[in-house]
């Protein structure tokens, strides 16, 4: 990967274009954006604004359904799930910064269904990286890249905006 390909603004512009195209389709009329806490929630907010949509997007947290609860315990730093409208019968576009193992997405899908039965669910991410441990895929992705398993990629707020950061894990 070159540094340019991980430039947040470039990737965001690409994701915005893909989301805009998806929401034009008839089966996506009345769709709700739901950002996965925390990086995805920031992204969903920005998308909601740039798409000219009213109100706040939903925020969803994986913490009550995580499969590593037994090892990691319960974090209280995550914001709880907040869905401003009923998702029953509505198309839901989940937004996240990075899709990696798929475990967060699995937990979030369980969380989402605790609130009702959406008409359809798709996943939009800034970066789709290798390392999947579950049969989960992103329908929309601004970039699809490969990284060593020892590197973690995530979105960070740096005061003025956002940037994608790689760190060792």
């Amino acid at each position: 990967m070159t540094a340019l390909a991980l430039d947040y603004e470039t990737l965001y512009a690409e994701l915005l274009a893909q989301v805009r195209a998806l929401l034009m389709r008839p089966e996506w009329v009345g769709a709700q954006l739901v950002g996965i806490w925390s990086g995805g929630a920031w992204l969903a907010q920005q998308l909601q604004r740039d798409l000219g949509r009213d109100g706040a997007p939903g925020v969803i947290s994986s913490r009550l359904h995580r499969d590593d609860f037994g090892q990691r315990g319960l974090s209280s730093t995550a914001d709880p799930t907040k869905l401003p409208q009923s998702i029953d019968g509505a198309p839901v576009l989940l937004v996240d910064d990075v899709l990696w193992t798929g475990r967060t997405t699995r937990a979030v899908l369980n969380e989402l269904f605790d609130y009702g039965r959406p008409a359809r669910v798709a996943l939009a991410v800034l970066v789709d990286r290798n390392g999947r441990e579950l049969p989960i895929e992103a329908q929309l992705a601004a970039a699809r890249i490969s990284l060593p398993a020892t590197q973690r990629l995530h979105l960070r707020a740096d005061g003025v905006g956002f940037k994608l950061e790689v760190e060792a894990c």
Partner: protein
Amino acid sequence: MLSRRHPQLNKNGELIHLLSIEGLPQSVLTHILDTASTFVSVSDRDVKKVPLLRGKSVFNLFFENSTRTRTTFEIAAKRLSADVLNLDIARSSTAKGETLLDTVANLSAMHADMFVVRHSESGAPYLIAQHCAPHVHVVNAGDGRHSHPTQGLLDMYTIRHYKRDFTQLSVAIVGDIVHSRVARSDIHALATLGVPDIRAVGPKTLVPGDLREMGCRVCHDMDEGIADCDVVIMLRLQNERMNGALLPSSGEYFQHYGLTEARLAKAKADCIVMHPGPINRGVEIDSRVADGPHSVILPQVSFGIAVRMAVMAILAGNEA
């Protein structure tokens, strides 16, 4: 191994048993309250259950009867997807002469993951925590006169919900403080969370002067005790105290220490009135106050479920 100084915390300072509020740092109390706030909304979902304790068994060991507390623990454990077993210990093993530790050893052999313990002897939950298997967590649901930590925590949750900041508050606890494990837990929690003005209010027989050592202001006059306070916590007057010659009669008690609208007018205009229940109308609290606009007695009950969910979820996620 349980640390000798903090039998409730593991070596990383994480909660592994909840035995009393005393000895818990502010960060642990705040973590519980923050976690509880995320569980309040679980009751608003289509599916009112989360899977954090799926496959775990919670044993309610009530050596002393308490339908209400047992029920809220049961609801909390079930909302976390645990299997819950209610044991009527008082009428079975203990009646047959089994010791407390033998009872616990037997239940551990049935693969319990958590014990919720109510006992008339102070310290019984400590004893169980010291002798149970390392993977088992113990929650004190009230022991003797000593402690009732989840009630203390749900009271703190309620206060924070209505008042936001602890550091500017005046809180009056009124009634039979000497016999009350709720009062003791509340006082420790309020002090740890930084409440500057904690008042213990009641007759001399029920509010001893040595409460000053716990950081309380002791008031034997009700009007003085609740003047300008933000929170009034009323305690239940237990009937057996009346028979025990500590008090002349319930009528006279109400006259001096009952919370009426006229008395409540001396507190701040936005004062909240709390009570751990069950309430004795006309003994410690007038119906017009219990059902009035300042009363948050029923929200306390709802918050109690979220707080108990938080405690059980936190314990289950931490290893000894």
